[in-house]
């Protein structure tokens, strides 16, 4: 039991390389040996990058920061699945014990018109920030709040809002969707605020504005395939999309 007992893997990696947004990209193949099963997927990339630098080749660019599954930065499309083969796990929390000796692993960036590639595996997800800026908030300036316990919130509502608020903004839902729809992401924020008393005043305006911005950013339509929910590392539920559709209908009826 315990750590340090990782067995070692030999792997073939096919990684997408693309110099910048305009350049055409292609796959590059690398062999790795002696990868410990205790390593995280990104630590395996660290090993690969060290090897590349040693060989005088440029390291592969990819987004990452917390490596704890919470910041939402990491974003690799691994063997045809956003964040790889394990459910409910981000790329950074995926460990090499999920792979077998001799495996070939194909790694690509998120692919969506609304998320253009910046370099290699790093994409531009600022569309998500603009969607939040369009209405994903409660309009309350600092200094205007009443005592927190004056707002009673039933535990169930608080818990449900929290589950929706757990979205890390990674964009896997978009990457998983054949239409590149951002409905899961947008509906998570709409739901969180629709479920709470604090979100009621702006409820109708919010959903309209956020959906309008989502459309403007070039995300596709939702055709209920459910791929987003299946690939979401935080288990954001399709319920949220249903709720958002109801919210939108209600908001459109004057």
């Amino acid at each position, binding site marked *: 039991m315990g*750590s340090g007992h990782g067995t070692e893997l030999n792997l073939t990696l096919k990684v997408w390389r693309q110099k910048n947004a305009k350049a055409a990209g292609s796959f590059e193949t690398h062999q790795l040996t002696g990868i410990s099963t205790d390593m995280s997927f*990104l630590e395996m990339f660290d*090993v690969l990058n060290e090897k590349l630098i040693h060989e005088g080749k440029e390291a592969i660019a990819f987004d990452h920061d917390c*490596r*704890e599954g919470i910041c939402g930065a990491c974003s690799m499309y691994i063997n045809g699945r956003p964040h790889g083969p394990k459910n409910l796990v981000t790329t950074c929390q995926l460990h090499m014990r999920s792979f077998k000796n001799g495996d070939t692993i194909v790694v690509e960036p998120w692919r969506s018109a609304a998320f253009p590639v910046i*370099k290699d595996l790093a994409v531009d997800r600022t569309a998500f920030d603009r969607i939040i800026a369009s209405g994903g908030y409660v309009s309350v300036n600092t200094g205007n709040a009443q005592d927190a316990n004056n707002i009673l919130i039933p535990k169930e509502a608080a818990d449900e809002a929290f589950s929706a608020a757990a979205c890390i903004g990674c964009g896997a839902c978009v990457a998983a969707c054949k239409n590149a729809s951002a409905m899961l992401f947008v509906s998570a924020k709409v739901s969180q605020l629709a479920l709470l008393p604090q979100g009621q005043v702006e409820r109708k305006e919010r959903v309209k504005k956020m959906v309008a911005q989502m459309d403007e950013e070039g995300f596709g339509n939702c055709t209920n395939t459910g791929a987003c929910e299946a690939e979401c590392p935080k288990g954001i539920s399709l319920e949220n999309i249903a709720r958002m559709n109801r919210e939108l209908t209600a908001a459109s009826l004057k």
Partner: protein
Amino acid sequence: MSKLDSKIPEGPIDQKWSKYRSTVHLVNPANKRSLEVLVVGSGLAGASAAATLAEMGYKVKVFCFQDSPRRAHSIAAQGGINAAKNYQNDGDSTYRLFYDTIKGGDYRAREANVHRLAEVSSSIIDQCVAQGVPLAREYGGLLSNRSFGGTQVQRTFYAAGQTGQQLLLGAYSALQRQVGSGNVTLCSRHEMLDVVTIDGVARGIIARNLVTGEMEKHFGHAVLLCTGGYGNVFYLSTNAMGSNVTAAWKAHKKGAFFGNPCYTQIHPTCIPVSGDHQSKLTLMSESLRNDGRIWVPKKKDDNRKPTDIPEEERDYYLERRYPAFGNLVPRDVASRAAKERCDAGYGVGNSKMAVYLDFAFNTARYGRTEATKRNIQNPSQEEIMRLGKEVVKEKYGNLFDMYEQITGENPYEVPMRIYPAVHYTMGGLWVDYNLMTTVKGLYALGEANFSDHGANRLGASALMQGLADGYYVIPYTLGVYLSEEVSRMSAEKDKPDSIDKLKTKHPAFDAALKEQTDLINKFLTIKGTKSVESFHKRLGLIMWNKCGMARNKQGLTEAISEIQALRREFWSDVRVLGSADEMNPDLEKAGRVADFLELGELMCKDALHREESCGGHFREEHQTEEGEAKRDDANFAYVAAWEYKSESNWELNKEELKYENIKIAQRSYK
């Protein structure tokens, strides 16, 4: 005369802030629109400051190196945020939070700042809830609290093990609302590389666009550094991979004094290192110590499975040594106690550098309570554990999952193995009561400043401090300076080459830009043989071994020369590939490691000069017979504020700490 003026207002401690706040100069609304504020950092401190200042009418620009402000390192905070609400009616008060923080900091923090922090703590919770932050609730709809170390009240608010995420998303939403209304310009994927000063006053920054590589000049009437802590100088820490000291360090080299650089927090409960490939360490929140009991076997080299070791053969060493606080002693104390057991040969796991954090006891307790609640008569042991696990899952589910992802072990079944790891830096840029550094117009907020936690930070107090600085302190204290700026601007209105007319066309901006461009080119032209990463790792090892949990004169002296040698090697043999005019993560990292290589030396010098033990700073030469930290109040009750002179050359300035409201005492948790 001291160069340091802390600008603490006169008057009794509990009136200083309220009186100051209502008498400071204000900036009128029309003038605010012509004042530009640069906020570097979008964590709790930066996002809250930027949103609030923009709401007040200032023109704000925000910078962060991540692709989105929502990904700032604050997002990873797990356990909770303190506030003296006394919702639990357990005797909490502003004074008690103030007292606990000063004591927890081992009497090395500034009283007036800490009291202010305790005073505004309640409003933070109100503001966050108003924003829709889903903090945990009880069945009656009221907010829930949990306990954290170093206190005997329940004042910690939380959202499962994702408190930082929820608070940051609240602040981020407020920020994005201002972005949406055009009051904030957002510069994500930008890295600040230098502060631009003109006649010693901060006037802007140089930043690199991390997508295009373009070097940019930005003008501001004030610059706020909210750039987080520097724990990554140790290479392995619980900080995010990108966390770094560059902004603070460059400011330091431009005249901002660095306060108490050696005060580092080593967190007792982290997942142990599993091999050489380790890129970072993962925290298991302090809140787990609420419900977990820490132990090692009583026998050395006991290789039995933890579940096979009977109760009487376990050493619950924290409960044994500190009966009053038990598993909830402050972090520095808990960390040293774990190190002591492992060094003495009682550690567990393959590396023997780990102790157990065991939930079985409390899982059973919860299970029994649940059974009673649900009216289950004579529940079996299995039933009890099943019910208990449900409760534990709700409280800490995401942490338990994370543990299992990383270690491959199920913590619901076997105790977690944990070991201390670098977590937080109490040291940082020295600031006065207004949060201004020793460079006029340059401020530091959040973890980037040195101010509130003394030599040891209590759990759940960093989130509180970051948001206090951003939502409630800087909005007032910035006006003190900016109202002077307004007068200056109107006096210089007709001056053709005034700072306000020239802005980034001032030659100081070009000089700073050139300096930073040259630096980048230098990295790329060394063309050595060793990667940036390898230097970072080596630096980390020196720091951890010689400036880590226990320090001594010999080790620190060695570390200083080792770091100097490593720095020379870096500048002659580092290999940075790619070019400057594109996204180049390796180049970014080169700059950060170069700064860590200078900071590390200062940390060791600070640790060497402080001939006492206090909080997270433990000098082996200074301990009590029982192995506790031994302070020297007669000689070291001061903030060490280091002034940069030239490479490897600093001058020490001291801010004496006066305790007028708390009796300074030997810290005891027994």
